[in-house]
Each structure stands twice: as structure tokens, then as C-alpha cells.
């Protein structure tokens, strides 16, 4: 048999009820690539219909893919698949974490960990290459993720990577996360590990990951080509955010913040990002000074460096020195990115004490909140948690729901004065399940039922659907394309494929030209905030965005950067290279695979996700039961009409047509949006079709 390369070749199965540890052959799942794809297949095959997230029968699949740990740019992501406690149907979701966990899992010789059953006492899983043991975790239970990591690193050595849950996961808070290396968090499945009493997983891996025989030079060349010509900054933004001599274009929203006289100011000595034009591959890591992007100019002097995930040259995680955190009992160091910074800021309902949303107090607040959330292991549900808090507070529902004594015990004066110390109360009460307040951590669906929110709650607050998730790059991002991306998942759409293209920073006409080459017509791409009626090319764009997202979560690559639809290279006329995933996959696995073939595998994964959702929800009526669109999308801007400049107000009939076109593009039933037998069989999933037929869930 040919040597397996890319993949490690085996996965770990750990049964916490029996203590049995066994090995599963990865290669029988290779059509599903890895990560999310394999996760869906295992959940589909092995978790009975009707299982709830915290049931013993639920399983958690930690999955990586054939590129994880190989050194391919931005390949350090881990995908976690399980049923979601926030979802009203407990339908399947993924959570994603970066850091080093995924690469270390591969170095230890594993493509994934299937966690099943439930322990009756706290345990942690110790992996040192092939040596895997279930250890007692009594001494870790009740501790935050930071202390858990420290204690396990003392036991295993500092070369171990530790992922753990905090108190929120232990207490079965629905909005809880799994966190590795202090700040790399995956949202939504922490409580499931809590239910299984699995506190942590520690990994030491010392083995090589092989790529295909004799392909070393090709690999190095491909890597150099990508680094020189194709890669941009975070979110594959390909123009700088200020005018620069080398750059033809610029865009103030670009995450390519590097410029002359911008520093990592707390580095010793300070490091100037300077200008980082394409072709200078050793400067790629300086392009994204994300601290100033996320927190404003005040963050520059506090930036120690930009951190990130294994083998990522982009490095979007700001590492900061914030001595003020010591006042709150934390260390002076903070690390985070994006929503993990902005979400705690939104908890401060009355703003900051200095009134400046980009000032010092805001920075301290956001750093404090992000550290507390990651330590307790609380997930913000893409910023929905503070919006729910705001809704409950401003409508008086919170006061109604909480016993008076509890309500009065909350230090509202800290909210009024904009004092960051309020966050200590906010996160602790949720994570430690203190009183009624902690139900904010149930997630929107269960919270709305429990606290009797009015129907208007669902038609605002950035919520997307009763699937209990918020919008995430929806109609404001590519109009129908963004909506179609947002209806697909059972959590917020963590898909950045379309958004990265829209936000790349290039002139619209250029982006339309490139869209024509990728999706069949420039009409796939609208001028932002001035969109046109639905067409088949937009359906192609939406489907491609979804498929690449599923592919990235399976192979694994970071969808906050990939795919490479555009590039910063003027000499390429800003064309990217959408075949790069297939090129790296071919070199890693030795299985020569074209872009179209890999896209077909991605389509298989998307369709399996859909089939699993049908199974979880016990209905084929995806169009009406799952793919719902909030009414505010159609009601926004009352004085404007759809398809006119200056609005992303959508048209109801047009969006139903958009759903039909997307279903058609996937070969799903155009009436219901459920996968058909013919499509499942075409994609090699006859067994899935048979199972759905047995459940009377085939259209």
C-alpha cells in the first residue's frame, strides 16, 4: 500500500463511559477530506436522531485535515463538530480554533479525536504521540482555562498544547467555548465537554508530517509563489489602508494597516511595520497591525507583537501589554482579535467612562473582557450575548426575570459610570451559573422562551433566525449572496469567502471582472450598497463561498484569509489563484487533484451538512423551517425600494428565487431545499440517502 501522506492516517476514538481508547482508519473517510467533513460523517453515522447536545450519545469530533501542520500558509486551524446546545433542534455545528492544537495533534500522529460517552468524574485526555491515557482531573475542575493550561503544562512540559474548558463549560452553559493556549477559542461546544466531564486535552507530538514523495521542492516553490505574489493581509485584503507609493489603490477599511511610522510599540526595541509591498515575503507578517485596527491608535504603544496560529504568516492576534489588567487580578498581558475584543465593549451599555469608543478605557475594557471570557470559557455567539443583555436590560425584561434581590445585587453603578469592573460581575455570574442572570448564557432561543421576550426581539438585535444565531456578513455583504450564506448553517455563518472578496479594497469594476472569471459573469458581484436582482451567477458566488468555507474547515485552512480570489499583485492585474488549495492538497497527499475535483469534494461536504441538518430537524422543509430570513431585511429603509442605490433592503420574491437558484445549483430539491437521492448518490453518499429514506426524509 502506498504510504499515506498529508493525513496522519488514523484517528483516535475515546469512549469516556467505558474508558476504551481505539484507533479509526482515516482513509475510509478520505472523500470527506478531514475536519468538518469527517466530523459530519461521524455524527451522521453514529449519533442517533433525536439526541440532544448534552446527552451521553452525542459525540464531539476534533478534526484536522491533510494540510494541517504541513506548513502551508494559514493551515493551523482545528475544527470541532458536534450537536449544538444553543440550536432549538440541537442541530450540528462546527466551532473552530487556531493556535497550535491542530498541528500538534498531527505531530502526535492523529487526524482527529472522536470523543464519545461520558465520564462520571472529571478527567482529562493526555496524548503523547501514540501514548494516550485518560487522567483524573479532580484538581482541574473549577479552574479557568489559563490555570488549567498552566497546571497541565507543568505536568506535561511546556512543549505540550492544552485545550480546555473553563467554568462555563463545566456548568453546561450553552454559550461556552473550548480554548487552547490562552486565547484560541472555539465557540459553542464547551458545555458538551462539560457534560462528558472532559476538562482538557493535552498533546505532545514529535513526529513529522509527510508530504508526497519527491515533492519537497515543488512544495517550497508553491509556498514561495503564494507568499510573493498571492497572499495579502488578514481577510485577504490586498490594498493598504492608507495611500502608499507602491500601491495603486487603498481602502481605509483594509486590514493591511502596515505603513511607515506605525509600530509594535511595546516590543523591545519597538518594531516598525513600515510598508510591506508584495514580493517581500518576510514582511507579510507585518502587514496586519491588527491591534490598531481593532482597538484604535491607542493600541500601538501597547502592542508587543502580532501572534497567530501555527504556520500562519498573517498573524491576526494582537499580543498586548496592559498593566491596568493587574488591578483586576489578571496578568498584564492580553491577546485576542476581532469579535473577542468588540463583544466585551458592547456589554458596557452606557459606554466608557471617558466617553471615547477608541480610547484607553475602551482598550482596557475590551482586553479585560476578552481575557475573562476566554478564561471562563464563555462564547459571545458572535457578539450576540451583549446584545441580548442590552435587549433584556432596556426592555425591562431583565428586571422582570430576576428576583429583586438578585437584580439589586448587580452593581449597576459600574454600568452607569462605564467602569470596566462591571465585566468581572457579568462574566462570573454567567460562567458560575449564579442566579437567573446566568441564563443569558443559554443563547437566544432558550433565553427568549425563558424570559418571555416579545416577537420584536427576533426582528432586530442583529439576530438572523430562530436557529438562535446572529447575522454574520449577511445582506450588507453582497446582498443575496450574503443572505444565502447566512441561511445555511445552524450557528452564525463563519464564512468569510464572500466578505473577503467584497472587502478586498479593489475598485468594484476590477472585482466584477474577476468575478466574471470565477463565477461566470461580472453580474455575480454588485456595487456595495447598490445591488441588482438575483441571477444565477450570484447563486454560483454564494455556493462557491459556502463550498470553500466547508473545504477550509475540512482541509484545514483559515477561512479568514483563504481562498485566494484576488491578490495584491499589480502585475497579475490583482488576480489571485483559486486553485491553490488543490495544488497544496495534491502535493501533500500525492493524490493529483484538480480545483474542480476538490470543489466537488467540498460540495459533498456541504450536502452532507445539509443532510445532517435535515436529519437533526426531522423535516425536509428547509425552505420554511430552516432557511428563514428575518423580516427586517425586507423592512429596512422604509423610504427606499429594493434594487435602488443606498440600500440593502431585500425583496421577498427575489429572495425566494435566490433560494431556488441556490438549491438548483446544489442539485437539491428546489421546493424544499433538501438533498435528493440522485444528488446524494452522485456525490457518493448512497448510504446517507438510504438512511434519510428510512427516516422518511428524502424529498
Amino acid at each position: 500500500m502506498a504510504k499515506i501522506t498529508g493525513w496522519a492516517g488514523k484517528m483516535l476514538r475515546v469512549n469516556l463511559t467505558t474508558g476504551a481508547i481505539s484507533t479509526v482508519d482515516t482513509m475510509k473517510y478520505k472523500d470527506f477530506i478531514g475536519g468538518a467533513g469527517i466530523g459530519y460523517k461521524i455524527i451522521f453515522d453514529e449519533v442517533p436522531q433525536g439526541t440532544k447536545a448534552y446527552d451521553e450519545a452525542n459525540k464531539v469530533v476534533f478534526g484536522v485535515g491533510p494540510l494541517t501542520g504541513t506548513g502551508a500558509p494559514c493551515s493551523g486551524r482545528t475544527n470541532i463538530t458536534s450537536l449544538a446546545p444553543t440550536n432549538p433542534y440541537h442541530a450540528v455545528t462546527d466551532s473552530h480554533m487556531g493556535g497550535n492544537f491542530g498541528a500538534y495533534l498531527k505531530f502526535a500522529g492523529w487526524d482527529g479525536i472522536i470523543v464519545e460517552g461520558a465520564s462520571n468524574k472529571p478527567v482529562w485526555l493526555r496524548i503523547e504521540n501514540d501514548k494516550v491515557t485518560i487522567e483524573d482531573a479532580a484538581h482541574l475542575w473549577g479552574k479557568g482555562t489559563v490555570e488549567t493550561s498552566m497546571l497541565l503544562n507543568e505536568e506535561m512540559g511546556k512543549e505540550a498544547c492544552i485545550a480546555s474548558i473553563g467554568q462555563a463549560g463545566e456548568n453546561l452553559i450553552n454559550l461556552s467555548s473550548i480554548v487552547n493556549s490562552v486565547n484560541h477559542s472555539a465557540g459553542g461546544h464547551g458545555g458538551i465537554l462539560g457534560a462528558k466531564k472532559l476538562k482538557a486535552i493535552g498533546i505532545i507530538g514529535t513526529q513529522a508530517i509527510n508530504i508526497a514523495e519527491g515533492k519537497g521542492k515543488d512544495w517550497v516553490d508553491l509556498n514561495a509563489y503564494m507568499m510573493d505574489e498571492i497572499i495579502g493581509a488578514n481577510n485577504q485584503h490586498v490594498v493598504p489602508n492608507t495611500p502608499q507609493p507602491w500601491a495603486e489603490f487603498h481602502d481605509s477599511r483594509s486590514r493591511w494597516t502596515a505603513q511607515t511610522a506605525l509600530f509594535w510599540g511595546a516590543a523591545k526595541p519597538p518594531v516598525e511595520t513600515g510598508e510591506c509591498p508584495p514580493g517581500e515575503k518576510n514582511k507579510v507578517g507585518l502587514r496586519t497591525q491588527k491591534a490598531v485596527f481593532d482597538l484604535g491608535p491607542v493600541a500601538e504603544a501597547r502592542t508587543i507583537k502580532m501572534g497567530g496560529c501555527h504556520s500562519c504568516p498573517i498573524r491576526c492576534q494582537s499580543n498586548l501589554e496592559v498593566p491596568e489588567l493587574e488591578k483586576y487580578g489578571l496578568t498584564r498581558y492580553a491577546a485576542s482579535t476581532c469579535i473577542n475584543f468588540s463583544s466585551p465593549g458592547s456589554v458596557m451599555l452606557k459606554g466608557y467612562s471617558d466617553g471615547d469608543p477608541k480610547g484607553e478605557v475602551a482598550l482596557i475594557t475590551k482586553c479585560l473582557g476578552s481575557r475573562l471570557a476566554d478564561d471562563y470559557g464563555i462564547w459571545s455567539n458572535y457578539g450576540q450575548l451583549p446584545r441580548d443583555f442590552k435587549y433584556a436590560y432596556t426592555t425591562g425584561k431583565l428586571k422582570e426575570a430576576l428576583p429583586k434581590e438578585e437584580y439589586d445585587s448587580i452593581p449597576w453603578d459600574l454600568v452607569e459610570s462605564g467602569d470596566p469592573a462591571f465585566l468581572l460581575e457579568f462574566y462570573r455570574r454567567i460562567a458560575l451559573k449564579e442566579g437567573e442572570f446566568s441564563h443569558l448564557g443559554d443563547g437566544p432561543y432558550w433565553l427568549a422562551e425563558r424570559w418571555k421576550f416579545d416577537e420584536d426581539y427576533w426582528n432586530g438585535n442583529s439576530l438572523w433566525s430562530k436557529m438562535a444565531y446572529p447575522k454574520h456578513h449577511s445582506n450588507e455583504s453582497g446582498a443575496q449572496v450574503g443572505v444565502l450564506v447566512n441561511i445555511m448553517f445552524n450557528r452564525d455563518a463563519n464564512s468569510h469567502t464572500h466578505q473577503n472578496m467584497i472587502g478586498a479594497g479593489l475598485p468594484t469594476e476590477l472585482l466584477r471582472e474577476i468575478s466574471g472569471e470565477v463565477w461566470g459573469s461580472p453580474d455575480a458581484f454588485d456595487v456595495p450598497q447598490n445591488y441588482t436582482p438575483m441571477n444565477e451567477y450570484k447563486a454560483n458566488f454564494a455556493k462557491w463561498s459556502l463550498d470553500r468555507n466547508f473545504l477550509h474547515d475540512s482541509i484545514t485552512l483559515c477561512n479568514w484569509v483563504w481562498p485566494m480570489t484576488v491578490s495584491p499583485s499589480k502585475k497579475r492585474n490583482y488576480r489571485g489563484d483559486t486553485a491553490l488549495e488543490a495544488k497544496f492538497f495534491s502535493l501533500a497527499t500525492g493524490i493529483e487533484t484538480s480545483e474542480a475535483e476538490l470543489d466537488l469534494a467540498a460540495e459533498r461536504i456541504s450536502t452532507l451538512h445539509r443532510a445532517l441538518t435535515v436529519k437533526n430537524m426531522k423535516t425536509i422543509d428547509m425552505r420554511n423551517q430552516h432557511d428563514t430570513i428575518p423580516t427586517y431585511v425586507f423592512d429596512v429603509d422604509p423610504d427606499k425600494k429594493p434594487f435602488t442605490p443606498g440600500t440593502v433592503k431585500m425583496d421577498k420574491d427575489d429572495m425566494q428565487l435566490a433560494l431556488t437558484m441556490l438549491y438548483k445549483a446544489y442539485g437539491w430539491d428546489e421546493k424544499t431545499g433538501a438533498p435528493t437521492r440522485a444528488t446524494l448518490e452522485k456525490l457518493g453518499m448512497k448510504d446517507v440517502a438510504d438512511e434519510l429514506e428510512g427516516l422518511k426524509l428524502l424529498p
Partner: protein
Amino acid sequence: MDTKTNTDNLESEILEGKAKGGVAGSDADIEEVFDKSAAVASFIREQSANHQTTNAEVFLEAPFSLEVEELLALLDELKLEGAYKDIYSIKGEKTIYLFSNQYITHNYANMMVMVEERDLIKLVAETVRYESKTYPRPTDVRLFYRNPFKLSVDIFKAVLKQLKETVDYDDIKETKASNNAVYLYSDKFMDRSHATSLAEWVEVEADQNP
């Protein structure tokens, strides 16, 4: 970089170029044209590498000391020579500016020339028109406080006031996001409602949708 160093380099390159010509033993007239072209291109590239455009008038002075006609002919010649295809010119009000696109893009050079010419009203108006037409997007006025414009807030305010009173630029309009950030757009290329919604997206909504 100061001009003296440039000139020193230039002199040595002229000498070097002649020496090479001598070795090749070619016709003296052709050799001289070649040398001057090389020297002029080299000077422009050096300036561009230091992020400066070159005012063509510099070549009328020592050490180049070209006559106007000679300079114009030479610049025409540069356009035709493959070796100098990186050298571009932009016509200003009173002079010509030159740059190498190895170091400065055309768009950036345009901005630099407008700054150089100190016609600040035109600078703001043309920049806004370019952005409204090209991207299309309204222009965040903070752009003018940055490189290569670097206007002070007071100067910008004065320029904007005058711009609003200039008939030639009556297509330039102002809009505000809900956080009061000021954006300009040209209504030749953008609808007001479109400009306002894009400004709102950049200023307010994008931050809420990271």
C-alpha cells in the same frame, strides 16, 4: 535624500555611461543621447525610490544643463525606449513631473503632483472625483490629513469652505455618517443616498460586523 548626493551619483553615472560608450566605440552623437537618457532615467528612478516625483525643470540646470527642446526630445525618446518603460510623466499646470513606476504607482504620483502644485482646492476635488468614480466610494476627509496630502485640520477646513464656493467643483458634496464623520463625494459619479449609506457602513456598521 538630499539633492547633492543625487547629483554626485548622477555625475558618476554620466561618467560611467560615457566610459561604457567609449568601450563600445560607437558614434559619439548617439552615445551622448544614450548617456543623457540613462542619466535622466537614473535620476528619476532614484528620486522615485525615495518617494519623490521629479520636476522636469531640474534637467535644465547643472549638471544636466539641457535646453528645453533637447529635454522634450529626450523625454519623448524615453517613452520609446524599452529600457525606460518604467518612466512616466504627468503634466502639471506649469511643468512636467516624472516618476518611475517601479517605485511609485500612477495613482500615487497623481496625488503627489497635486500636492506639489499646491492647488489644494483642485487636489481635494479631483481626489474625491477619482474615488467616487473608481471604487466607487465617498472619501473620508481624514484621508487629506495623511500621506501624501498631510494637510492640517485648519487648512483642510479652509480649503473645503472655498471648494464649496467654487462653481467648477459644485459636483462635490458632503455627507455625514451617524457618528458625525464627514465624507465627500462627487454627484457626477455617485448618488447621495449611495454615498451616505457607504459612509454609514464604513463608520458605524462595519465595526459591529467585524
